[in-house]
């Protein structure tokens, strides 16, 4: 990935131009749709939507990367489903039940569902400037600015702190600490380093707070934002389409 964690990927796709709140709402509706349905057809439809969005945003490589990561993460859940969902024709007998064709279907469903619902959220966060997202949430959803600021600051500081941690570890390596080896060993060596990291992060957040305060943080209200975030026809259409998917998911669930 070219940028850092949640770093804006510029572009002018449909998704880039959508209202930030509409994007978030549609993404969350897609998540709900994915979890409300077990229909392979509907999940496949969401996957198609995902693929189209990724292509339009010009983020195919990143999206495939994310999909792989989500697959790896959901494999554990899939394994549990496979072993503990005795359904369908018996394939392998187990002391507590069996692995059947239904178990395989359940496992696959979990992986597909998680990938399908992760992609829209992932894309939305990468094609929206964090500042726009925060400002739009404040303006449109009337969320108090300090919460929006806390959220953007958190995301903004993640790479800063990761950088600090890397610096501390390099300093330790230079003084003979060997960070290579097993994961357990590395974690054991990293725990005491949280103290200097904490000190430097408290210092940084303090200076960030002061810097925000001297630029009028306390005066900011919902009306302060320079940019307006009106809903365009395609914002409404996207939210309606996502809502329709949720309705379809629920309806299919009731029928089946």
């Amino acid at each position, binding site marked *: 990935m070219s*940028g*850092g964690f949640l*770093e*804006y990927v*510029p572009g002018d796709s449909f998704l880039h131009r959508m209202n930030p709140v509409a994007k978030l709402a549609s993404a969350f509706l897609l998540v709900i749709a994915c979890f409300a349905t077990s229909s392979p057809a509907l999940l496949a439809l969401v996957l198609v939507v995902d693929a189209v969005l990724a292509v339009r945003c010009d983020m195919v490589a990143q999206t495939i990367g994310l999909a792989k990561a989500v697959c790896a993460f959901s494999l554990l859940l899939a394994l549990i489903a496979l072993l503990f969902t005795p359904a369908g024709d018996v394939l392998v007998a187990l002391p507590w039940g069996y692995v059947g064709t239904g178990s395989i279907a359940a496992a696959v469903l979990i992986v597909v569902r998680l990938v399908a619902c992760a992609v829209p959220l992932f894309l939305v966060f990468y094609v929206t*400037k*964090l*500042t*726009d997202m925060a400002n739009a949430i404040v303006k449109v959803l009337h969320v108090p600015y300090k919460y929006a*600021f806390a959220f*953007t*600051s958190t995301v*903004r*500081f993640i*790479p*800063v702190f990761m950088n600090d941690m890397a610096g501390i570890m390099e300093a330790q390596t230079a003084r003979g600490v060997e960070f290579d080896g097993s994961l357990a060993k590395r974690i054991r060596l990293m725990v005491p380093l949280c103290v200097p990291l904490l000190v430097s992060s408290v210092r*940084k*957040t303090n*200076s*960030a707070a*002061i*810097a*925000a*305060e*001297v*630029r*009028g*943080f*306390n*005066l*900011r209200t919902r009306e*302060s*934002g*320079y*940019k307006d975030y009106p809903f365009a026809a395609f914002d409404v259409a996207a939210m309606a389409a996502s809502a329709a998917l949720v309705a379809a998911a629920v309806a299919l669930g009731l029928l089946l």
Partner: protein
Amino acid sequence: MIEISNLTFRYREGSAPVVRDVSLTIPDGTFVGITGAAGSGKSTLTYAFNGIIPHCYPGDFYGSVVIDGLDTCTASLTDVSRLVGSVCQDIESQMVSSVVEDEILYGLENFGVPKDEIGRRVTEALDAMGIADLRHRSIAGLSGGQKQKVAVASVIALEPRVLVLDEPTAELDPASSVGVFELLRRYAREHGTTVIVVEQKIALLSEYADELLIVDGGTVVFRGAPAEVLAHSDELLEIGVNCPRATSLVNRLRRRGLFAGPAARNVDEAVAACKEVLA
């Protein structure tokens, strides 16, 4: 105008005052350079100008700081900030946005600058710092010098009466440092802004400042035009302030009675002085 009278400040966790009995009057539009050894109290002194002490760091605050008639101790930090724009030392944590334009917008939005004026202010601030081409760039992808200019632009967009900068060139190479000072001076002259800048690079300060303040042990030990202050290069060295070699050379000539002119601020002035001596 800035009037500091008998300012003493001790941080709550500190045992001794960091700023001791400082009294200063700074006329409007002055470019003031503050320098001193590490731990001399120069940063704390800048916090007095922008109201960060006593508003953000608890401690004992004696005396008064009055900026254009506003007492920084009784006014809120926000009100002080309307007059005084601050660029902090830690640029990285000062940034609130991911894109340059949004960073400039931030303060303007907060202070309620009318929307029909915001566009002009953003453009002017970017132009003043020579970074109009960075307007839509992501901040994470900028160099240190560019980030520094963005930080300054985001503050001058607020059109403050006083601009306080804490080591604005700490992470910059010599060429970019000169660039930042050049832009600052031009901006300050055009707008009549008072500039107070803390800086380790005394040669740079001497070039650009109208007035130099040398701080040691929390007090102002030397104050005056750069050439006057630099005449004390030996005393400065004792308190950990290294003068340019050109200055030391000319001061030696002055001490031996070979040269009667002012202390040199740079190589060109030293060359001129040497030519005069040799002639």
